[in-house]
């Protein structure tokens, strides 16, 4: 659970590839069939040009495959890439991380902060020709608000108290009982569905194999585990893409993906090993671009610091090493992590050092004023010596001081777990173990499959140290909630961390509608987390993609973010030459 999935935005480059399935769907594409056919007829030649116009077909190699075409059920990055291309949302995130209009031309909040009003664009239509109106928006938002018993993510963007109205065809109002500071962030994934289709089906079991949306691309065919074929929506209200067709092909093996690009079987790839970058860069026909992922991600070193009184009554095992609850131990371990070296060796430089649970890619929300703990093994040893952790039996491992009740775990010997689907996990674990052993802390590494890791993690809290990660929403609210006391029994809290001062700030920022005031609170929360060290955040990885510059040009690469799930590049690229 957690980590690798937050597929939402989920930048986590997991390959939860789905496999052979007969889920082929074919829909005829009015847009493509009517274009191109009416070409000039040369005298004496009665054939017409094939209906493939000059825009051509873009082929993209990726590692996964959509798990569901129903936006309520999707959980993978690949799902959301397809949704972004097929559907529109009221508000979207641009590639510099700003909220900009999509279906909503503008939006505003009432004086009391309780009612949000959105004005919709004129002339948006669904792929079947039906106009998109405020009724569709109202229907969709209410569907997502009430879907907690069947949908995966959507209901988490609502508090349940929202009253949604459609006073006229281009206006939608949302009224809440308490103000929210994250309205825009909640609207970014609200894929507007056609009411006339969805109200006639059971949304929780609807396969949505035709995917009628209002976006710039239409679905042609989807074969689970193999490919997704999309065609340009010639009637798109926002202006049709140049290319005729986009094909996403699944290559489970990253080396095969790289080879496919080099050979020209595909025009663009995402998710390749950083070790392949130099090979790709040496090919003059290939351009490699790197940037922040649309959904910033972070890797974390989680300490189990659950106090006995906070142990979940029902599911808690709470077997964390007692010494980890001592801040001095965590401080020493923080001094024994060289973040820059991890970035250089594990990510070949494609990452930035993290501070607290807010990823560096979240822009204004990231507190960049904190001066991180320097890598200093001598200082780490000094801190542990001073705190009374001495190696009394001379085996190279320190023991708990006599004043501390460590039960039968007197030695500073920690279990360290990481998920088996992590490429960097093994080297990260081994590197940390080497450093920590130099300060007298032994590490026992055990790799677990993500599901087992979840069962030892939370809410059972049956571990010492876990190496894992998060993908983030554009709004930091959700990740920050993982460190509140209330989330210990729910299993969202991975560390068992509980600090009333932090909680107070968390609940205050939730309802703060003044942006700068909320940013200040979020920064202060990061300061607290950095001092209390429930986590060490070694790095936030950058994302990279590579494309053939001899096939298509115009890929957007000069923005801070780089993401295929943002359709803007696919809307503007055009054939080279």
């Amino acid at each position: 659970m957690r980590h690798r999935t937050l597929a939402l935005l989920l930048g986590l480059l997991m390959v939860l590839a789905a496999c052979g399935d007969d889920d082929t769907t074919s829909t005829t594409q009015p847009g493509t069939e009517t274009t191109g056919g009416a070409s000039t007829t040369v005298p004496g030649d009665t054939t017409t040009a094939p209906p493939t116009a000059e825009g051509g077909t873009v082929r993209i190699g990726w590692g996964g495959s959509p798990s569901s075409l129903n936006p309520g059920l999707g959980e993978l990055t690949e799902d959301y890439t397809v949704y972004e291309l097929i559907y529109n949302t009221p508000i979207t995130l641009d590639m510099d991380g700003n909220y900009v209009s999509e279906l909503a031309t503008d939006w505003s909040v009432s004086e009391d902060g309780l009612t949000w009003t959105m004005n919709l664009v004129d002339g948006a239509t669904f792929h079947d020709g039906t106009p998109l109106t405020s009724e569709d928006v109202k229907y969709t938002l209410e569907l997502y608000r009430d879907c907690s018993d069947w949908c995966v993510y959507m209901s988490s963007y609502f508090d349940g108290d929202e009253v949604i109205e459609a006073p006229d065809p281009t206006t939608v109002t949302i009224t809440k009982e308490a103000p929210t500071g994250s309205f825009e962030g909640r609207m970014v994934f609200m894929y507007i569905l056609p009411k006339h289709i969805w109200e006639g089906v059971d949304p929780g079991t609807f396969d949505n194999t035709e995917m009628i949306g209002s976006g710039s691309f239409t679905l042609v065919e989807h074969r689970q585990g193999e490919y997704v074929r999309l065609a340009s929506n010639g009637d798109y209200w926002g202006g049709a893409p140049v290319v005729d067709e986009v094909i996403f092909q699944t290559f489970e093996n990253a080396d095969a993906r790289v080879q496919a690009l080099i050979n020209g079987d595909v025009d663009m790839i995402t998710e390749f090993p950083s070790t392949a970058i130099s090979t790709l860069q040496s090919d003059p026909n290939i351009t490699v671009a790197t940037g922040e992922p649309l959904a910033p991600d972070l890797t974390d070193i989680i300490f189990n610091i659950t106090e006995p009184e906070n142990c979940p009554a029902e599911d808690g095992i709470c077997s964390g090493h007692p010494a980890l609850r001592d801040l001095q131990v965590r401080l020493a371990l923080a001094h024994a992590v060289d973040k820059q070296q991890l970035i250089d060796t594990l990510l070949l430089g494609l990452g930035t050092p993290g501070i607290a649970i807010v990823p560096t890619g979240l822009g204004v929300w990231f507190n960049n004023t904190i001066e991180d703990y320097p890598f200093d093994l001598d200082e780490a040893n000094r801190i542990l010596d001073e705190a009374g952790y001495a190696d009394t039996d001379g085996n190279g491992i320190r023991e708990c001081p006599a004043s501390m009740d460590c039960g039968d775990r007197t030695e500073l010997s920690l279990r360290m777990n990481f998920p088996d689907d992590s490429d960097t996990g093994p080297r990260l674990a081994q590197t940390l173990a080497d450093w920590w052993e130099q300060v007298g802390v032994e590490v026992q590494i055990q790799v677990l499959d993500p599901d087992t890791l979840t069962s030892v993690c939370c809410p059972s809290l049956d571990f010492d140290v876990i190496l894992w990660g998060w993908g983030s929403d554009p709004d930091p609210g959700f990740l920050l909630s993982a460190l509140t006391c209330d989330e210990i029994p729910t299993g969202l809290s991975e560390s068992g961390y509980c600090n009333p001062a932090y909680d107070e700030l968390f609940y205050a920022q939730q309802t703060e509608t003044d942006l700068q005031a909320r940013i200040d609170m979020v920064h202060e929360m990061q300061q607290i987390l950095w001092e209390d060290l429930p986590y060490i955040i070694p790095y936030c990885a950058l994302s990279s993609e590579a494309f053939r510059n001899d096939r298509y040009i115009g890929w957007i690469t000069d923005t801070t973010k780089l993401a295929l799930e943002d359709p803007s590049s696919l809307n503007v690229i055009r054939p080279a030459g």
Partner: protein
Amino acid sequence: MTRGSLFLRKALWAVVTIFVVVTFNFFLFRVLPGDPAKAGIKDPRLSPEMVAALQERYGLDKPVLFNTGEGGLFDSQYFRYLGALSQGDLGTSYAYRNRPVSSLLGTALVNTLWLVVPADILSIILGVLLGLVAAWRRGTKLDVGALMFALFTWALPTFFLGILLLFFGSRYLGLPTGGRITIGLDQGLWATAGDVLRHLVLPTLTFALVLLGEYMLIMRSSVVEVFSEDYILTAKAKGLNTFQIIRRHGFRNAMLPLVTLIALNLGFTVSGAIQVETVFSWPGLGKLTVDAVAQRDYPLLQGAFLMLAISVVVANLAAELIYLRLDPRVTEA
């Protein structure tokens, strides 16, 4: 004992074996740590209501073996599964929402057979021939060369051989880097068939090379052993030529261990060629099963393992029947 009743007895045993495997697998998967209601949707934001709703939909809210509460003793996960199974219903996948397991398995099986059957045939024919030649020319450079080749391909990790072939085949022979077809080709049946064949070349070759070594080694040692038997000497003394000796006396006796191996390998065919499928992005059974384990997709796992169990048992049954033909002495067993 007559051959007919022998067959009946063996068939009965096969059915019992399959039933035991079905039961064993059912409980085996449920012993794994992890909760399918959560594993399908790995999101911490999952509400308790949704977990409960999912568990109810999957029937996971019922007791595993016997229901001592309301609903009757047999209203449990196990007996519900047996009941559905007896009607040929394999259930609905958790991870691939709302999709019947039978259709998931069916599609993947067809893809896997396309890949594995040609590879099996190729490797058996080549392996047997190579083994025969090597045994006949025992000790020569030809034998040593064939032996080295077989040991090398057998020992080489499958994914590594696959990557090597993918690299050279796609770069220098222009073969596709993966997948089953060129998407969007839309050029009629023959063009499509040719396209599929082109996609099949590298994965089939990889899998065939991996299997070949084992067949060759078994065949070689088996023939070498047979050739040292007195009756071969007698055959030589009778003045039979090499071909006649191999055909009439050597091959048939040497085939026994090979039949065992072929039956075993064919039985496991439906488990797919996991590594080959992964390297070449081939949407087959192996990958489907691996993903099902990761997702704790009980119905899909049960279906895949049931299919595997049936095919292994049937293949073994077939092997025993072939024994009967090849070697009359087997009747006593």
